[in-house]
């Protein structure tokens, strides 16, 4: 298997001096779920937000290092950020459906990307809603406002919205933190389906979720990558004392 993403010596500091990354180096596999976990303030979200350059819009004091996606350094100022964000989709902790219908939520980004053919759009709507495991629940009311759905459904709409763009990489920042166990199960099942086609990077909202979903897992503590290993090994026999303590619930 090849590394889809290579992160080389990435360091970052926000201007208010809060959460930052220190010298992170890691490779992220294609067609696998890579989990970034650790206590709050460890730099997991920051790392995710570097991968689609969403951090561009935050006040940053300094950042060094490189992130290579398919061999190209996306931190290069010359990178086309809009194209990058279409290639690297993101789902947030809080479901934020746009103030439009269910259908328009899915087609909006495609239309921004220049797709106008109705047949293509319909096709994308059905395909992505199916992949996000919500098609059956909404297929008869695609023109209802998306905000009328339940939280779990909204989150899967947000996932479908990302899938519709046919990205190569999907970033998920605690996508199930506000959801009930049943919705959480549905989202996790969707992830297993998704990794067949995409590279998935997940910041889980609990260690249990990390253990359930991870093909590879990376443990972050105060901006440093402490341990990076295969999921099964990480959650049964971690090598580092700090990782073990965290997984056993001795701190964090």
């Amino acid at each position, binding site marked *: 298997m090849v590394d889809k993403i290579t992160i080389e010596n990435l360091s970052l500091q926000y201007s208010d001096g809060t959460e930052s990354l220190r010298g992170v180096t890691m490779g992220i596999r294609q067609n696998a779920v890579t989990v970034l976990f650790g206590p709050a303030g460890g730099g997991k979200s920051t790392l995710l937000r570097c991968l689609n350059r969403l951090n561009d819009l935050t006040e940053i004091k300094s950042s060094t290092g490189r992130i290579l996606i398919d061999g190209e350094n996306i931190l290069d100022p010359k990178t086309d950020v809009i194209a990058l*964000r*279409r290639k690297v989709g993101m789902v947030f902790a*809080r479901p934020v459906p*746009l*103030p439009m219908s269910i259908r328009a939520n899915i087609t*909006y980004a495609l239309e*921004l990307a220049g797709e106008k053919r109705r047949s293509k759009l319909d096709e994308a709507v059905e395909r992505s809603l199916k992949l996000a495991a919500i098609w059956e629940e909404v297929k008869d009311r695609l023109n209802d406002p998306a905000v009328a759905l339940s939280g779990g459904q909204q989150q899967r709409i947000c996932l479908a919205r990302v899938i519709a763009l046919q990205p190569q990489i999907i970033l998920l920042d605690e996508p199930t933190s506000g959801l009930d166990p049943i919705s959480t199960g549905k989202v996790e099942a969707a992830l297993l389906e998704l990794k067949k086609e995409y590279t998935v990077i997940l910041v889980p909202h609990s260690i249990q979720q990390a253990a359930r979903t991870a093909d590879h897992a990376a443990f972050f503590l105060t901006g440093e990558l402490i341990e990076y290993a295969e999921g099964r090994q990480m959650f049964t026999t971690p090598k580092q004392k700090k990782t073990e303590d965290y997984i056993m619930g001795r701190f964090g």
Partner: protein
Amino acid sequence: MEKSLSWREFIITRLIQTSGYSAILFVALIFFFLLREGLPTLGQVDAASLLNIRWYPIENYFGILPLITGSLIVTLGAALIAVPFGIGTAVYISEIAPRWMREILKPLVELLGGLPSVVLGFLGILVLAPFLRVFLDLPTGLTALAGSLLLGGIAVPTVVSVAEDALDSVPRAYREGAWALGATRWQTIWRVTLPAAKSGVLTAVMLGVGRAIGETMAVMMVTGNAPVLALQPGSLFSPVRTMTATIAAEMGEVANGSTHYHVLFFIGMVLFIISLVVNIIASSVVFRSKKRAERILS
């Protein structure tokens, strides 16, 4: 001990209640006073001459149409200036400007909103009017246009600060959601942030227009005060007189209880009703879209 505490509660509750009721009472009293002084007009001047196009109180011509159109044209012009500029500035401050710029601009705008309108009237007379006269080659610079420009300037800070607050309260997650989908900054502002802040932005527009319609001093100083019917677009470049300016200018010289006196109060009534209608329309629009916004945010 317990007894004194419940007494204190009782007194404080009543005090708050009284001040709340008195606000309503004062408005009712003002309206009653306006009616008492204004309604006799209808007995003394017949409707046809009220709707005449001549305002010349000394000769008993009490046509208030020129005053109403004067107010409308000046307010409309002011709104056309204040709304786009105000919303544009608000979007710039809250969405585009870097943080240091925002920290300079916000207090500056609020300071601008606190300038007494007489001071702006001075600027209007000394700078704006002569400039317009030379630049547009008019017989006088004291025109409806000058009033509109000045009023627009006065209303802009109100629009900016209220609209900026509304945009600021849109959750950051909305914007990030759109950015992460590959929307540009402008697409995000236009399709996501502004619609989400719609009710607040509408309130800003209404407060701005309200400020413009009620403004007296600055308008009186720069519009030239000629009670001429202003119906065609060209009226923008000729002197007009607004309802507020008429009341302010003539109330001091009028004989108490005369027809002229009652007519001035009648104009006050019309003004009152116009701003009441604007407010009712605004709050019903805002109320409706607020319910929608609440659904979205829940």
